């Protein structure tokens, strides 16, 4: 349904294909380095933090309030940060590029 590219630390791009579910689950299924999803995807741990490419941010949209608050736990967060357990895979996300937070 969508091809999504993760840029992992060390600048290595990993492109994976997802049909449904959350982007975090897709990353974990494909063992994308740096996306742990420790809490299992319930927005409780902030270990699936990604930076969305600026020009693509409108594709995923703003974080929810709880998600924004959780992102405050991470010093590396910026205005294009999302917790990817809170992003559902849709066809519109095809071509999305996400940089895994450090």
């Amino acid at each position: 349904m969508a091809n999504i590219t993760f840029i992992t630390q060390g600048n290595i791009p990993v492109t994976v294909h997802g049909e449904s579910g959350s982007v975090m689950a897709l990353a974990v299924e494909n063992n994308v380095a740096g996306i742990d999803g420790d809490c299992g995807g319930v927005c409780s741990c902030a270990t699936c933090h990604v930076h969305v490419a600026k020009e693509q941010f409108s594709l995923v949209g703003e974080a929810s309030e709880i998600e924004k608050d959780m992102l405050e736990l991470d010093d590396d967060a910026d205005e294009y940060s999302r917790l990817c357990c809170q992003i559902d895979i849709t066809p519109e996300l095809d071509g999305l590029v996400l940089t895994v937070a450090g």
Partner: protein
Amino acid sequence: MMNAQPPKETCIIVGASHGGVNLAFALRKEGYSGRIQLLDTDKRVPYHRPPLSKKHLISDQPAGQLLKPLQAYEKADIDLQLGVTVVDVNPSEKSVTLDDGTSHVYTQLVLATGAQPIIPPISGVDSAAHLYTLRTAEDAQAIAEAFNACEKKRVVVIGGGYVGLEAAASLQLCGAKVTVLERESRLLARVTAPDMSDYFYRLHQENGVAVFNAKNVSEIQTHNNENLVCCSDGSQYPADIIVVGVGVRVNTHLAEKAGLKLDNGIAVDGNNQTSDDSIYAIGDCCAQFNTHYQRWLRLESVQNALEQAKVVAAVICAKTPKMNAIPWFWSDQYAVKLQMVGLSQGYNKVVVRHERVNPESFSVWYFNDDELLSVDAVNHAKAYVLGTKLIAQRQRVDIDKLQDSSLALNSALLVQI
């Protein structure tokens, strides 16, 4: 013999749940090049446990969410052996024996053996119909099957702790008639303040669960697949399914065989090393001195297992470990998100803060005199995040301002200079 390679190191990990699995992968991340044998009695590919009592309890795939895809183990050269049980440890030979009779030598042994639910010694408990604990995917599946097969769907949950309450919520949402029987005078008595207990009592009542405190279950009578749960005060509750959530017993059997020091679990140092240099213990099964709270603790949480896994991976790879000494937990019930940070034990002051802008959000702040010990946040990630930072930094909090809900909650408000 000219080109003989030095013998490879081998790390054997006993227990492939959150702690064991994360340790195996963390070892590779830290550069461990030896063999990794990851063993578990459970036959299923390792899975997330928290959802078992939450949203997945009654679903088509109660064990749906894997910790890692099966291929990832192969790719990381982790020898995952499921459905095997370690029956003996021989520290002098540095070997373990499996139930198939084979013996395996280790360089490092890690016990991630967890705990198992307690079945209380209630009269009739052994012959009760459809009585379950809830810790493994098999447990969740058995509950789901019994639930789908029975008509009246009357569920009695014995124990009003987190597992019991989460199970009650998810079964109620699926159409069960749920009764919770708690022995103490309030829910979650061991882990939270009375305000929080009252909140969860009301929450479950409002959602149609019958909750009774101070109920000591004395007997279970069973006839024709129907149970009658009898309490010492004479009250009786019919049940097609009984879920028992009254706590756990640590799996220390192997540690005992290895002669390791035990103290409310397997005693470990700051590096999660046991009293034997080559043996480590992580997760629910071990007790460790917490540097922040200056006290020995045995924690039952995913976060603790993951942190300790990272520590042991670093130690085995001769790197400097980093441990977050502030524990955190979460619980989802109905649409309520509870996030907790820190430990409230020893508090002598509690501040309950309700937010004016969002009445669904509130937080409970626990203090020992001036020191902030922990925060329970309901639908309130902001309070949880702030609490996390303030506790870690040992910041003094302005309690008057915290109590004033006309002021917005932020760190500038709270930090007392």
